[in-house]
């Protein structure tokens, strides 16, 4: 028996690409949640002390527990409260919320890096609170943290296989499926690895370009 069978590889490729589609959907939607929720957490984290303490506690709690546990928790515990969501939705939520706690730290660092003089100038001009964020602080903070956010998207992409646990058949889920049916694992796992590499590597090159660009002295 050959170690590598080209025709088998070609035969399973469509199933793998279908899995890849799920992986990408989970990554893109999860990232959107992580970007938006993380920003909200970062801004609330600069609010009045009680708000700050609550936000801090939530962020620390989520960051200190494994993503897999959170995925299981949402999938098996939410229904007991009458909330029944499709597995993919639960997966996207879990990824998004989990990574939001990381992106909130990234945003926080970016916001802290905006010089105090910028805030003082907004006070001297009496700019409204909302406009201070949308017009002055975030446009300066976000470009600086884009590379770090990009890195989290790549790690999220590589963590989607965790969702197999709740029956979301991403690319690795498909590999296990076809592997289980045929008892041939070499082609499936190799192709899955290659597909991950094919997407992650260019993405990390893009992030590195972003890093170089934002390192240019302003």
């Amino acid at each position, binding site marked *: 028996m050959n170690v590598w069978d080209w025709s088998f590889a070609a035969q399973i490729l469509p199933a793998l690409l279908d899995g890849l589609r799920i992986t990408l959907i989970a990554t893109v939607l999860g990232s959107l949640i992580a970007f938006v929720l993380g920003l909200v957490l970062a801004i609330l984290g600069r609010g009045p002390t009680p708000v700050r303490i609550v936000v801090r506690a939530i962020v620390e709690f989520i960051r200190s527990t494994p993503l897999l546990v959170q995925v299981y928790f949402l999938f098996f515990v939410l229904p007991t409260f009458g909330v029944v969501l499709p597995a993919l939705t639960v997966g996207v939520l879990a990824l998004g919320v989990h990574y939001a706690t990381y992106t909130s730290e990234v945003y926080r660092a970016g916001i802290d890096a905006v010089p105090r003089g910028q805030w003082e100038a907004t006070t001297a001009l*009496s*700019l*409204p609170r909302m406009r201070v964020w949308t017009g*002055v602080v975030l446009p300066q903070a976000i470009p600086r943290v884009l590379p770090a956010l990009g890195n989290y998207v790549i790690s999220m992409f590589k963590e989607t296989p965790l969702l197999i646990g709740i029956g979301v058949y991403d690319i690795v889920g498909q590999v296990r499926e076809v592997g289980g049916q045929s008892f041939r694992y070499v082609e499936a796992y190799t192709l899955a690895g290659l597909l991950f590499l094919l997407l992650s590597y260019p993405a990390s090159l893009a992030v590195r370009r972003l890093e170089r660009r934002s390192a240019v002295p302003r």
Partner: protein
Amino acid sequence: MPSLDKTVAEPMIVFDGVEKRFGDNVVLSELSFTVAPGEHVCLIGPSGSGKTTILRLLMTLEKCDGGTISVAGQSLSHMTHNGRRVPADEKHVRDVRKRIGMVFQQFNLFPNMTVRGNLIEAPTRVLGMSKDEANARATELLDLVGLGDRIDSHPTQLSGGQQQRVAIARALAMRPDVLLLDEVTSALDPELVAGVLKLLRDIGSSTDITFLCVTHEMGFARDFSDRVMMFDGGRVIEDAAPEKLFTAPEHERTQAFLHAVVDR
């Protein structure tokens, strides 16, 4: 003394028994003084004597620990509500603060906006000016500060002196009654200082804005101000017309300070 007849009107700025501490460090204690409308007052003295803190308190960048500060008869910390004196709410502070403009040592222009953006931001968002009106005003002010051709530049493309001119124009765009200048030439290359000071002299003589400036430029303090206040250890130790303070200072500390900074 030109300041005397100006003080007849209601003062523009009143500090009454103002206290400011940073931790155990008392920066200002029992500080009281007034500034008349249109008066130009320079604050001089050694670093750490509390001069900049005075400007920062007026701009509400710091909160005072005691006493009251008023601008045009309105307290920054209290307001009258149903005939009672109550702590000021945000709207009240905003309304009082709108009358005050500030120019910073480090310019603090918004680097994510063009020069035009910097100039029209507050007039459109805070004063509710139309874009067209704010743009016209921006053009006019840039001409005034000699940068009419740089309206679409980004702050980072300008020299320090040019950035500070834009910052001055940005403060003027809000039509302030009071302009606070916090060591506005300290961060500039020496050759750019004179131009910015000349601009400020021109603005001072062509408007009725009340100026409160912290400066280490004694020549500027001397010919720009109606009154100079010498600070040391959080207190006014001498308050006099510039002719008097620079030629015949009464206080020993003032003499020593002027000796050190003027006769370098």
